[in-house]
């Protein structure tokens, strides 16, 4: 690949290919073929994803990663190799090695043996170390409630520390073309190529904060390039052909958000701002393993059509903690639904809800929580909508009712109480083709902090 000691390039282009596991499969292909880019960044991991992967790995030790990633890479590997585009992706989930092996096998089948290096970043998975950490006095208290982890220890399904950009930088320095990681922060996947390309240092806090803001801006894919955008949404052109965002980054920490020419969507100050406030806690203190970024210092300017310039970002030193994302089992739930037709659709759905609740009560079934929504009337806007909706004239209303309980048998019994309402409840009912709902395990989220020194990131390089 490129020589290590050449002067820093003025611009590095980092393209977002996936914003979550389940995102548009066409996006990565379009990013690598639609115009020049240097890096393809793909973010796969949401909080709950790791526990799903841990479950898959426990059934089959060769699984536990984002399986979609492999056929997706198979499709773009020849282009990546030909154009020298590098990849950073946290598709490895709880099994980055197995993911890397699957990608390597795909690359060999394409005749790329000896032409690519894969970097593997691990060390984030704390599941096997939890008891040791607890025994040494690390309580892993829930950041929201303050409760110590020992309260739910026997129900923990996964535990992963968020690693930052630096292990990914190390993989790039060791000439990895594709870096596959476990729980590396979404922002670290974008920041790492900048650190690598521009030679930023671990205490360049403003620069690291700027790269973090760049990462936050594109980590959700098209959500900053016209997707899910409220401002003049009906005028956003050609969403069918939406262009995913690209960061054009400079060594001084300034960057532009842009997209390939000829694609749909829209990149404006308003759309980028919406993404900046997404999942935001304290805007003055966006804490990552790499730095603390101050989002109140960000300056945005429209630098051209579909081009927003970002500057002014200030940062502060990183903390001595890492966030740990823990998932644990929290009982069971089931959700059933029935659709009632005009006239009096809302009244019929309300009546069905009353009948169902009476029957559950008569059966002596207690639930920790029970929620009824009337889709078409109050599901998205709650009681405020009921106050103004023409309830007597709604063409149809869906009763959607869910229960939650530690007792699986109670939830199971609930699932058998929906269908009878078709014959023995209010009239004009439909929408029961989906069959009886199934009880599902609830996976709850337990955010905690751990001392940084307790987590040792590990980087390996394998030749394809």
């Amino acid at each position, binding site marked *: 690949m490129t020589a290590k000691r050449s002067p820093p390039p003025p611009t590095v282009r980092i393209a977002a290919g996936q914003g979550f596991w389940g995102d548009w499969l066409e996006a990565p292909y379009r990013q690598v073929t639609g115009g020049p880019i240097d890096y393809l960044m793909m973010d796969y991991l949401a*909080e709950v994803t790791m526990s799903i992967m841990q479950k898959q790995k426990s059934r089959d030790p060769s699984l536990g990663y984002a399986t979609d990633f492999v056929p997706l890479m198979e499709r773009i590997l020849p282009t990546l190799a030909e154009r020298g585009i590098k990849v950073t992706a946290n598709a490895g989930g709880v099994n980055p090695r197995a993911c890397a092996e699957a990608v390597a096998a795909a690359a060999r089948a394409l005749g790329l043996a000896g032409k690519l290096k894969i970097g593997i970043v691990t060390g984030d998975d704390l599941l096997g170390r939890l008891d040791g950490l607890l025994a040494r006095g690390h309580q892993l208290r829930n950041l929201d409630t303050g409760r110590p982890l020992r309260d739910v220890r026997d129900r923990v399904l996964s535990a992963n520390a968020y690693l930052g950009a630096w292990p990914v930088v190390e993989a790039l320095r060791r000439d990895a073309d594709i870096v596959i990681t476990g729980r590396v922060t979404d922002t670290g996947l974008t920041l790492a190529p900048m650190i690598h390309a521009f030679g930023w240092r671990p205490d360049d806090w403003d620069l690291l904060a700027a790269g973090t803001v760049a990462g936050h801006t594109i980590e959700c894919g098209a959500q900053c390039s016209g997707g*899910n955008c409220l*401002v003049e949404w009906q005028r956003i052109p050609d969403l069918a052909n939406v262009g995913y965002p690209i960061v054009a980054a400079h060594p001084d920490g300034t960057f532009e958000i842009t997209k390939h020419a000829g694609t749909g969507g829209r990149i404006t100050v*308003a759309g980028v*701002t919406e993404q900046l*406030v*997404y*999942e935001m806690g304290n805007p003055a203190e966006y804490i990552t393993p790499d730095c603390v970024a101050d989002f109140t210092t960000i300056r945005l300017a429209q630098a051209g059509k579909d081009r927003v310039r970002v500057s002014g970002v200030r940062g502060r030193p990183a903390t001595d903690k890492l966030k740990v994302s823990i998932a644990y089992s929290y009982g069971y739930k089931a959700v059933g639904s029935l659709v009632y037709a005009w006239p009096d659709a809302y009244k019929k759905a309300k009546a069905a809800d009353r009948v169902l609740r009476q029957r559950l009560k008569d059966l002596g079934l207690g639930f920790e929580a029970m929620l009824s929504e009337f889709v078409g009337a109050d599901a998205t806007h709650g009681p405020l909508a009921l*106050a103004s909706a023409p309830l007597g004239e709604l063409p149809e209303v869906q009763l959607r009712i869910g229960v939650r309980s530690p007792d699986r048998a109670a939830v199971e019994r609930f699932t058998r109480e929906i269908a009878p309402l078709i014959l023995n409840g209010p009239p004009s009912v439909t929408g029961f083709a989906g069959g009886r709902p199934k009880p599902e395990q609830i996976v709850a989220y337990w*955010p905690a902090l751990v001392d940084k020194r307790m987590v040792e990131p590990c980087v390996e390089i394998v030749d394809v």
Partner: protein
Amino acid sequence: MRRRSKAVKRGRGRSGRRRVPLLELAHARSGDKGDTANVGLIALKPSTIRSS
């Protein structure tokens, strides 16, 4: 809609203030972590934000 919500009834009240739908003043995006959601509001015009 045949009738307007009470919540967004317009016109000046006794205080001289006016009720308008938030959508006329701001756009927004929400996000979530676990059971916690945030709502980010962005003024359509900077002059809408008055420091108190």
